[in-house]
């Protein structure tokens, strides 16, 4: 599904700012990959580059999604093709209601694929259902997008979006940071319930604790812009015990 070959990226318009220095991973349908690494290793850059954030420039390598090179595509088209990024720090957008925003997202996707748009009634039903199952405060969700949400509430809102947009590939950028155990469980439940043979996840995390709830198929250790080790779920436990020092 996702093939990343020798991916090199730097901060756009800044010289000698290489962050990713040749990342290779291959994610097959149905797999959950965890990308772990110490602070400053390039984890967040990697997830943002996958989604096409304009702040970064890809200097070399390939990102191939379902057989198509997507490096030139803007974020909205990557979204239409089935990619999703759950943000580490979701931004607050005053005056934009989550309901309206998600309906517009689905409509844009339908339009892109030449499909008919979901009706308001159908969407409202879906929305209410998911608000409930994601444990999102129904009063909060009537307000502006992420505006005045606590850290945990923002992450729940990311999971709500994930469940409504139902992407093929979901990238979770340190979604677990700042979450209490209950919220962590909600994120994990969300991922586990959406797990299917044709949906994949790339979970970027500093700590192993989220992986207590979501069992990854493959764990990569990213250090200084390169994958230095790849293994199974046991690798994460290893890191938990010994830290990243063995890989640096």
């Amino acid at each position, binding site marked *: 599904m996702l093939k990343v070959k020798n991916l090199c990226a730097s901060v756009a318009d800044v010289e000698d700012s290489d962050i990713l220095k040749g990342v290779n991973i291959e994610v097959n349908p149905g797999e959950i990959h965890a990308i772990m690494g110490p602070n400053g290793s390039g984890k967040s850059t990697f997830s943002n580059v996958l*989604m*096409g*954030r*304009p*702040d970064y420039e890809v200097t070399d390598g390939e990102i191939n999604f379902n057989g198509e090179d997507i490096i030139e595509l*803007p*974020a*909205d088209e*990557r*979204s*239409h093709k089935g990619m*999703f*990024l759950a*943000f580490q720090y*979701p*931004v607050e*957008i*005053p*005056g*934009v209601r989550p309901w309206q*925003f*998600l309906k*517009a*997202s*689905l409509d*844009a*996707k339908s339009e*892109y694929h030449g499909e008919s748009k979901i009706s308001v009634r159908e969407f409202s039903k879906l929305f209410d259902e998911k608000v409930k199952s994601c444990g999102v405060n129904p009063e909060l969700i009537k307000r*502006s*997008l992420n505006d005045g949400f606590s850290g945990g509430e923002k992450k729940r809102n990311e999971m709500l*979006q994930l469940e409504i*947009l139902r992407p093929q590939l979901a990238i979770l950028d340190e979604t677990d940071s700042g979450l209490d155990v209950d919220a962590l469980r909600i994120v994990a439940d969300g991922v586990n319930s959406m797990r299917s043979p044709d949906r994949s996840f790339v979970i970027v995390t500093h700590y192993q604790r989220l992986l207590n709830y979501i069992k990854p198929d493959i764990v990569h250790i990213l250090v200084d812009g390169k994958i230095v080790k790849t293994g199974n779920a046991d690798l994460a436990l290893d890191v938990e015990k010994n830290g990243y020092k063995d890989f640096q």
Partner: protein
Amino acid sequence: MTNKNTISRNSDLSGDEYQWGFTTDVETELAPKGLNTDIVKLISSKKDEPAWLLDWRIKAYENWEKLNKSEGEPDWAMINYPGIDYQDIYYYAAPKSSSNTPKSLDEVDPEMLETFEKLGIPLNEREKLAGVAVDAVFDSVSVATTMEDKLKELGIIFCSFSEAVKNHPDLVKKYLGSVVPFSDNFFAGLNSAVFSDGSFAYIPPGVRCPIELMTYFRINTEGSGQFERTLIVADKGSYVSYLEGCTAPFRKSHQLHAAVVELVALEDAEIKYSTIQNWFPGTPEGEGGVYNFVTKRGRAEKNAKISWTQVETGSAITWKYPSVILKGDNSVGEFYSVALTNNHQQADTGTKMIHLGKNTKSTIVSKGISAGKGNNTYRGQVQILPGAENAVNHTICDSLLVGDQCGAHTVPYIEVRNPTARLEHEASTSKVSEDKLFYLMSRGLSEEEAHHMIITGWSRDVIRELPFEFAVEASQLLKVSLEGAVG
């Protein structure tokens, strides 16, 4: 700031962003260019006006002429334009057919009706479908007023200003100039001398106007100024919601628009006045466009409420401060505004809240959006006079920048002469950040849609004050007006 070159009248047209830029080939009757006592008399006689009104116009003209010689145009606003040659403007332009005023829509020039179709206000359908009575002012002459019969039953008067002068002279005489006297300012004085038409509404005591009254203004004749006059009187305990829309054709030369709106809300009455101002803003290179110098003011008597909502996306220059004189005890004044400037547009707009009565309360929510090379200034005055015990004002003044060549300025004047007053002033300036854009785009919205969503969301506190249909139009206008500023 202003120098006295006349505006170039032969520059090229380019760009096609302004979709209301069509002209209508209607035969027009023009008075000669220029302004003098004879022109004022001509306008008055064309309208068969009574002597008192001609007299008022002449006084206004003389006052203006004095002002023009001594001080000229006010120059305190943060706007820059070549001086206006007041002798190079047509002060009277009426479609020829108006000499025999149409008695029904069937008699209206079909081509003119087509113009309104293009504007999206098919008069004859609006009447039935939307329940909106439209008074359409086309180059300052009111074309047709719909729904008049239905309003008549309730005793509501809604007609062109000229008709009001003919049929309700006492009301006009009593209130004309009572809120904005002709000596108020340069442009109000000019308007008082030469106004050719406009709208008039009167709501009798205790009547709640069941529909939204609406006027659509359009400038069509090249080189003509538009000087319409609106007077709305809400008698004791009545309510009215009034909508005003404005467009102008795509012209290479600048057009002057100097309107006056007076609102009178008597005891316990409420007037809600909403405007979508979409005059031609000029080309992306800054050629042409409407110069919009407008005086809007309301007077609120005891327990009365006046609320202004405006979405300003058009005009090369906007100079406009819809204000409320809170004269009666417990009266309320509100001002909600979104002003957008793109390309070379300049806006200096805001409000004045003058607190005279006890327990008076005012709210100001101003949102300025600057894009391209646009310059946007909020200028607001809150005045608490000695008699205004326990007056309250809350002001929110936000600016949003799109791109790095635009400007946003905030100039609040606050004058408090009663120690019991409570005032709050909040202000912020922000940018459409890359973070927000990327967040929305990662959810599938195009860059343009993402911009639009951020901007309309940011303007929501104002847009939701508009009647529903107008809110949709306003949101669309913001989108269209920002084209070219994004990406």
